[in-house]
């Protein structure tokens, strides 16, 4: 075997004969001197493996195949002389002579063909990608003008809010003492307490409803999907218990009678409840409780006072207006105000609160205006956020090439389930036989593996969707989307290599970088 066998061209100068076989030669790392005869003698002398580039003697060395007619390549020494013809060594130089044919011509041609095909995809893909970039530029303009408009609107609204707040404050300060007094009423306090209690109850009730639904979903999923083979009779009992509670037939019977069209839900008997007098039905609760709780209790308080006052006529003094002929009215009012102020001064009468309705109205107008301002602010924030993300490498790419795909939903039918990914949104798994979908998580980040630069092409080859619904006996579902350049946005394969951790492969033109000059040139040849 030649001394330079397996030496890459760049290292050939280091493998020059030192003159004679017994003269010494230095291992490439300089750690040891060995006789020249020990180079490529099928015995590992150098700790770095550099004395055996052409044999498999060193466990840590590499060997170079020239592959004339194709591209040279470096393979681990562990593959030299193992009896297998390495595909990377199309010239067959990794094995003893005669074992492997030189197939570099064919390999080279096939490689060229494949490269050409890849370039073709990239050429087409990168054209689409440039459209995406153009889209991002348009988006940028649109967002910028949207932001400018929103900012102008906000300035106007801020002024309006300030004016209305002032108005409401003034109105309220006039009557606050009076209202405060009325609020001391035990009835009002009790009402507020009831209302709070009701609200709290409603909150708890909703929580329980959600919880019940979640539990039901989990149990449904368990019932439909449980593997009876976890050898866990406890699971079987849980399924049977749920079926009894929900009035469902046993799933094994359902499975046995495949094709039977019996609607499972219909089996459940809805038990009629008898309502006490005046008690609300579940439906009414559902529909009307919210509006009841939205009542303006201050207004009610005032209305209540009016209601109490009406049959008794109230104090004669305060209700004379009703009896006084219109012509005398102005004088009467002037008199009354004077008198009342006297009476008030002497602590005999309380202030008149006819204007409290005005107060809440003013407050409401102010509040509405503030809401409108907040919403405008929100729109502005959103637009600004979008603008920021547009060229953010950690979002839509440094050229904004992914913006076009924001919200694009792709799906793949994988037999039992259809998988859907709304890019930058949520990934879902939908059973093809019907039933509720599972969230596989929401977009969280690109490929953040150590050593991968945000903005590099590799960075965009992986998208992560995380924190989906939790798996029975497993983690929260998540998806890794493995993307490569392609002329279409399409999901190719779905796999679940670990429980509830999905790998979905996808192609997208957004990953098709334009060919650089040398690549493009090769195409023209």
């Amino acid at each position, binding site marked *: 075997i030649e001394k330079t066998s397996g030496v890459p061209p760049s290292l050939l100068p280091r493998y020059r004969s030192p003159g004679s076989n017994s003269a010494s030669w230095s291992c490439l790392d300089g750690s040891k001197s060995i006789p020249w005869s020990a180079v490529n*003698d*099928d*015995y590992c*002398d150098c700790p770095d493996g550099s004395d055996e580039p052409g044999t*498999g*003697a060193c*466990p840590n060395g590499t060997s170079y195949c020239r592959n004339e007619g194709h591209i040279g390549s470096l393979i*681990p020494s*562990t*593959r030299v*002389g*193992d*009896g*297998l013809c390495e595909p990377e060594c199309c010239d067959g130089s990794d094995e003893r002579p005669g074992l492997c044919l030189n197939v570099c011509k064919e390999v080279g041609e096939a490689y060229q063909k494949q490269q050409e095909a890849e370039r073709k995809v990239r050429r087409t893909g990168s054209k689409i990608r440039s459209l995406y970039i153009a889209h991002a530029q348009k988006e940028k303009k649109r967002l910028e003008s949207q932001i400018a408009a929103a900012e102008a609107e906000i300035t106007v609204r801020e002024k309006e809010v300030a004016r209305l707040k002032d108005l409401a404050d003034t109105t309220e300060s006039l009557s606050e003492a009076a209202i405060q007094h009325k609020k001391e009423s035990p009835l009002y306090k009790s009402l507020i307490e009831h209302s709070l209690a009701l609200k709290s109850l409603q909150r708890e009730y909703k929580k329980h409803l959600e919880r019940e639904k979640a539990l039901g979903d989990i149990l449904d999923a368990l019932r439909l999907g449980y593997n*009876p*083979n976890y*050898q*866990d*009779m406890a699971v079987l009992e849980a399924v049977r218990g749920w079926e009894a509670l929900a009035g469902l037939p046993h799933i094994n019977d359902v*499975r*046995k009678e495949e094709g039977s069209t019996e609607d499972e839900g219909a089996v459940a008997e809805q038990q009629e409840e008898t309502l006490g007098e005046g008690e609300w039905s579940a439906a009414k609760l559902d529909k009307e409780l919210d509006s009841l709780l939205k009542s303006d209790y201050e207004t009610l308080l005032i209305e209540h006072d009016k209601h109490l006052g009406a049959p008794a006529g109230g104090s004669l003094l305060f209700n004379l207006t009703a009896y006084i002929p219109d012509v005398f009215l102005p004088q009467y009012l002037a008199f009354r105000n004077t008198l009342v102020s006297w009476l008030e001064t002497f602590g005999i009468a309380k202030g008149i609160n006819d204007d409290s309705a005005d107060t809440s109205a003013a407050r409401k107008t102010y509040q509405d205006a503030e809401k409108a301002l907040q919403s405008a602010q929100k729109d502005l924030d959103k637009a600004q956020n979008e603008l920021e993300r547009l060229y953010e490498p950690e979002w839509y790419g440094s050229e904004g090439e992914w913006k076009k795909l924001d919200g694009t939903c792709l799906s793949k039918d*994988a*037999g039992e389930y259809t998988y859907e990914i709304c890019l930058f949104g949520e990934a879902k798994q939908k059973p093809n036989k019907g039933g509720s979908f599972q969230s596989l998580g929401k977009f969280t980040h690109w490929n953040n593996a150590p050593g991968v630069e945000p903005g590099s092409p590799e960075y965009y080859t992986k998208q992560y969707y995380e924190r989906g619904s939790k798996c029975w*006996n*497993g983690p929260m579902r998540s998806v890794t989307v493995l993307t490569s350049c392609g002329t279409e946005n399409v999901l190719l*394969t779905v*796999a*679940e*290599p*670990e*429980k509830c951790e999905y790998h979905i492969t996808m192609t997208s033109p957004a990953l098709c970088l334009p060919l650089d000059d040398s690549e493009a040139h090769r195409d023209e040849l």
Partner: protein
Amino acid sequence: VKSQDFKTCAQAAFCRRGRALSARAQESQAWKSPYSVDPSSVAVSPEQASFVAAVKSSLYPNIKFSLDVRVHDDGVVRVRMDEVDGLRKRYDEAASWALTAEPTISPDVKWAVSKKDVRATYGAKNDIEVVVSYDPLTVILYRGGKAQVVLNGRGLLHMEHFRTKATGEEKAPVDAPADDSQVVMQVNNRAWFEGEEEDGFWEEKFGSWTDSKPKGPESLSIDINFPNHGHVYGIPQHATRLDLPTTTGENAHFSDPYRLYNADVFEYLADSPMSLYGSIPFMHAHSAESTVAIFNAVGSETWIDVGHPSATSTETHWISESGILDVFIMPGPTPADVFAQYTRLTGTPALPAHWALAYHQCRWNYISSDDVRDVQRRFDAEDMPVDVFWLDIEYAEEHKYFIWDKKTFPDPVDMMHDVEAIGRKMVVIIDPHLKRTDDYPVYKEAKELGVLVKSPGGENNYEGWCWSGSSAWIDFFNPSSWDWWKSLFITEQGDKWSWTESTVDTYIWNDMNEPSIFNGPEISMPRDNVHHGGWEHRDIHNINGVLLHNLTSQALMSRTDPPRRPFVLTRSFYAGSQRFGAMWTGDNLGTWEHMAVGVKMVLVNNIGGFSFAGSDVGGFFGNPEPEMLVRWYGVGIFSPFFRAHAHIDTKRREPYLLDEPYKSILRSLLRLRYSLLPVWYTAFRETSVTGLPVLRPHWVVFPKDEGGFSLDDQYFLGSSGLLVKPITDKGVTETSIYLPEDQVYYDYYSYEAYRGASKGKNVTVPAALDRVPFLVRGGSIVPTRERPRRSSMLMKRDPFTLRVALDTSGAAAGELYLDDGETFSHRDGKFIWRKFVASKQHKDLRIKSVDLAAQRPGEAVDGVALSNYNGANDFAKDIATVRVERVVVFGLSTKPKSVQVGGKELYWEYTPGVASDTKKQGTASVLVIKDPGVGVSSDWEIAVQV
């Protein structure tokens, strides 16, 4: 573990009765076995060492039993007892499934009949005596006048005879006298022995299951004592120590007896007498003076109490649910003798295919053919060796075994060819339960052939629940199933359905063969189910698993002509299973405790005759942290069967997925296993011929060294001289290794020389995470292959390194066996078997290679005794160019003056250090001889001139 899923002794009526019998015997002052031999009935065979006699029970004078005692030509004593002319027939076929052939009865040993006993004296020194006493019936084996094994010495022998339920004679004594009180007396006459009540005679409930017990009580109890042996080992499979802890007596370690009832125990305990997946009713009893053993050939559920009345004696009590008494007594007197005696009965382990000793990568589940290709690609990218990829149950559509799920495995044969292209194999799971659907040809054919297990009554096919949902079970006790099962594995299209979507490099994993049945009692089959011949499942339960294993291995052999060595992994096993492939310790947990007990369980299996054993590396359940996983690989590379496996709920943990430094450590551990494959293969050759286990606990190698009798966390690898102590604890940096003799041991990594002492000595050895503590015993020559390859197949032509570890006298020796690793051509003489010897000649050291095969052709290979050996056989010619590339000598006393082969000076390097023949500690001197230019299969001699 869900302990409530499995019976305790108190929950099994016959065990309850057996233990109660033992308790009554303990309490009674005047206990005497009711069983006796009728002296007038003794009939000695004139030709052979066998006699038969009638046995009576004083409790039931009308019930007849027969006794049959034989001495085999190797000195093993077989004692059989059965009920004669009873209402029914007891199951008497257990031994026929375990034994390779009907043993030859000695034509020389003579029984001498006297008035009170029958006795025979034999043995090379004429020091063995077997005495069968008449009244009470006892069988005692003596050596040199000392009792070794005593049957029924405590009078616990009881064979419950068949009776009729309603009019049982217990209630209507024959010749009942008129006086009522005497009737009561008569009943009481039996109660002293049998107890007052019919405890669980006719029906038994456990959980929601009822065992209909149509045959009634038929249990068998026998006490077997070793009055002069303080240690007992064996009776796999239990998760506990090698030196069996006690179950009776004061401070018993366990309160329940050891149970043998093959069961699928979910998340089993790491220290328990509970039964597990397999049963080998084979027990060694050991003392510094001798080793004896017994094999109790029973197939039904069996409980074994173990006690030490003193530190130097052992009592055991065996309680079985049904079957005849069929006990083999192995007289020893050395552990090697016992292994030879046991393997003459049940067979030696088959010599595995060479690749099967390499690394196996498994997971539940590699989910698609592309997944398999990707795993292979990543191993290769990391240059980590692996030989076998495994597929668990998810490859099969709806768990219909053989039937690929084409959604995920659209191209199974192409996938296998891609794996085989790198010299690798695939193992695919085939379980014994069949999905009950007629579009599944395997079920349909089994049903039509009538080879399914029947439910109680024997009319209908039994239906149970397993992976495939509603399932049926093949009854391999039915001979009609045998050829049919074998035909399923034919890879070429024929007239009938067969597995054409497989290759002849596809091998098989038989799981769930206890059998595991999810909705059955104790996750298994109802005992009143009916097998071929009308036998109940209770009669054959522990044998059930071995039949599938046996037939699948035959099926793999019948795929090709000439046949190739099969590989079948089984979870359930019995005595004799070693002939058919490998086993593993089932669904262990990813905990340090399970890692540690896994080492002990594999050792127990090795001394149970079934060497090809391992436990799931990494633990089946759980996500081991990197340190634990690395240590587990350290355990795995020193297990005969080395497979990583993981539950479907676990994170992936293939070695290439770990971060540094763990990944590189795993790579070097894997490479270490591959470099030692010549040692493993040579050890397997030895066990395949002699039955000596591949992993040897101290008491096997040093039977007289008391200090090693209870050691079960370190062991020797075959006869290689490698002493291993895998680390199974967290955060360890060094460990203590016990050296049993006054000899030098060298650290494999650092060449550090450790000195033992004649009374045994503990030495402290480094145990950083990147190394498994293991030493080379002085006096050993260890052949290795040190070029890392992707698979073992690709090492076929790689050169060897010889490590010569000089002993305190400056000598060493070692063996190497090689053949094609795949076929049975070694039985036609196509192999090499070499011995390397290093010896002092004057002051010089001579290292030579001699042809062991030519010296001892008759004991070279398993299955056939060759009369001669041709050194120029096809295999030897094929590897004629394979050389020894390096010889490393530890412990030379001085730097050599020259190292030569055939007068030609070699290139060598010498690093001074400690010499083997001194008492010094420290790093040994190392002589590395480079490329001596000698072939591994030829005779040569290297002269080291000092």
